[in-house]
């Protein structure tokens, strides 16, 4: 196993990757405040997957990376209203344990991993036709 990359350098790597853009996966993320030396608060967006009720919708999220990230997962909360089994319907908070592929958190997972998995979850057969709140409404 390789050297353990400390939180801050890991977040710098993620920031640099995020700034370059992820393209095809239709997710993006960045730092909330460009001078946040602790790199705690981030924002993310997910473009709703095609062939689902989410198609063409843009969902905003906030991501909070605590001091124990990436040993522990970040807190992820939808700002845009969305109806999904993994999202608390009064707060927008995401229950990561309900996302099958990342339910057991690994240190290698990134904010990008979470956004991509959320998007995949939206497109899953069980979720892609769930009735959704009006577009543009927030939690």
């Amino acid at each position, binding site marked *: *196993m*390789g050297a*353990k990359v400390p939180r801050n*350098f890991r977040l710098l790597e993620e920031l640099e990757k995020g700034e370059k853009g992820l393209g095809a996966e239709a997710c993006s993320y960045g730092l909330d405040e460009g001078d946040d030396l602790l790199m705690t608060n981030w924002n993310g967006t997910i473009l709703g997957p095609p062939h689902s009720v989410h198609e063409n919708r843009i969902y905003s999220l906030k991501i909070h990376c605590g001091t124990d990230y990436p040993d522990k997962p970040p807190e992820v909360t939808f700002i845009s209203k969305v109806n999904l089994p993994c999202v608390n319907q009064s707060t927008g908070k995401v229950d990561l344990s309900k996302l099958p592929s990342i339910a057991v958190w690994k240190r290698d997972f990134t904010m990008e991993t979470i956004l991509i998995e959320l998007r995949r979850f939206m497109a899953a057969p069980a979720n892609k036709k769930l009735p959704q709140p009006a577009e543009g409404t927030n939690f």
Partner: protein
Amino acid sequence: MTAPLPKRIIKETERLQTEPVPGISAQPHDDNARYFDVMVQGPDGSCYEGGVFSLELFLPDDYPMTPPRIRFLTRIYHPNIDRLGRICLDVLKNNWSPALQIRTILLSIQALLGAPNPEDPLNEAVAKQWKENQGEAIKTAREWTKLYAQPKQ
């Protein structure tokens, strides 16, 4: 688990403790021997004089084939250091050589504090101020040093 620490890193770490560089310290974390808490004093005669700056340094897997990663944790007003503390310094990028060491890099960073280079900026806003009104820029750098870079105790 984690691969054993290369001899080169062990030697460098030992030497940093036994023959410390004046005005610089680097202490590895107990739980990660590749991750260092660094302290650099602002050079005398510079607008960072009297300041004690915290940095963090990490030696990636392929060190010394690739340079250490390093950034300021103390806020600093400097044209070659950005708002997240990232440093624009040739020896940390294209001019890195495995013959360089942690100690030479830290000396280069201390020298950079003594010689800001607004012609090769990382922080455009600061570099602009530096070129247009150097007196004002230096004043701001001194103020920030007083505000953010005071020794803890």
